[in-house]
């Protein structure tokens, strides 16, 4: 298996974490939007109807999606990072 060099390795890690950050921003934005719409409905007296209940279900769904994304990114990248760290130490010690 060929790995990118140390410089590009940093670039790759940065892009990967930026992707995770974009997911947080995207889903966070949607959650804020839904919250804003519920507050608008409340303010305009649309009432605590079923529609607000339905919308409230959406927030946990989006948060679960975000949780899955972060779980995978952290789990896979975390191990990849540990492995590279071990390889660097091994190289330094001439193992």
């Amino acid at each position, binding site marked *: 298996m*060929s790995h990118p060099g140390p410089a590009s390795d940093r670039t790759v890690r940065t892009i990967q974490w930026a992707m995770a950050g974009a997911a947080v921003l995207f889903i966070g934005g949607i959650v804020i939007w839904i919250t804003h719409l519920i507050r*608008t409905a409340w303010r305009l007296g649309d009432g605590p109807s079923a529609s607000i209940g339905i919308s409230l279900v959406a927030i946990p*769904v989006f948060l679960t*999606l975000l949780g899955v994304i972060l779980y995978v990114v952290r789990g896979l*990248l975390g*191990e*990849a990072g540990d492995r590279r760290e071990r390889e660097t130490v091994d190289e330094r010690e001439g193992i």
Partner: protein
Amino acid sequence: MADPAGTGDEVLLAPIERTGPGFYWIVGLLSVLVLWGAAAYATQFVGGLGVTGLHQPVSWGFYVANFVFFIGISHAGTLISAILRLSKAEWRRPITRMAEVITVMVLFIGAGQILVDLGRPDRIMNVIRHGRYQSPLLWDATSISAYLTASIVYLYLPMIPDVAILRDRLAKRKLLHTVLALGWTGSLRQQKILNRAIAIMAVLVIPIAVSVHSVVSFVFSMTLQPMWHSTIFGPYFVVGAIFSGIAALIVAMIAFRRAYGLQGYLKPVHFRYLGQLLLVMSLLWFYFTFAEYLTGYYGGEPEEMKVFWAKFNGPFGVLFWGMVVANFVIPVVTLVSLRRHTVGKVLLASISALVGMWLERFIIVVPTLSNPRLPFGEGTYWPTWVEWGEMAGSFGLFALFYVLFTKFFPIISIWEIREGREVGLKEVEERLLTYLPDHAEPAHPPAGAVVR
């Protein structure tokens, strides 16, 4: 380690490694359709919705029919793939990726129809800033956002091991593959993480997918318009969506089977099983249609009957009966026996079902608006070249996205095929034994699929 060398799966990487002239011809042809769509949209953007056939009282036409149709097609992927994964249907392995790609691509196109229908796309900001949750249109926006996000995640996660194969094998697009592979090495810990995430997503996307088309149906059924205000519209739409989704999946499978020489992976048995599913969905569709129209007819409510007769023997009669033939007669006749000419028969039934389901969406949207309950006066709807162009462009864009995807990623999941060979056979045997009366069920269920 993830490397297909020596496994005989090189044919799955061939479309990514090499590009033949056929690819450029297809891309060129689809680009022409997309350009036609772009020209149509530009005309509408400059001239407003007046250049279309939309007017009062028929304010929804091709665009909304396309929206419902495309969102329905999206059920091909995530829902079918998730159900097959959870039910451990082993024959799913070569088809899940194709199905999941359809979902993601088509959701973008479907959601885009609403932007086109708005006339002025800047008005989408009003929905974002001032939307009110008492409108089912906003429920739609919410559920489609959730479905799109979930579908992208559900497409991406099972792709990670395959992207790692590309990273290790190909010299081109190294950065893209390295970034998307997320440091995948195939270690036990990584397999465990990915398996768990895929399992969570498979469970999560099913209710989301069902909710999406239910909510799409609510846009119609929450009004008091004749032949829209129906309590079975939710399941009726979901059944139609799965029906058209399976049909779209079959057409895509047959196209790529031929184009990329995937006969060894997509065998007649896959088409036979999908054909049987299609037949079941055709029968279910007919049952729901029959129940829907019989109930309306028996009520005999005058406004309802105007729409009813407009569909049965009025101006929409040809389209209505065409829909019945395409969705029920042709699929049932062709799929009832699949022992010979399986692929050809399934293809014919699928194309017929796709045409029929588009007609069904049109038949739901337009006749009701042509005969409104309020005293607007009746109306007719004739699409102009702008709507035809936009429709051609939408189909072209979907196909173009799909074809381009196959140049970047394997269209059949390599690791799932390998897993089937290495682990699946033994696992199926063990599972089968647990079904039999003289074998005890293990204390713990067999370990989940292993990602390589």
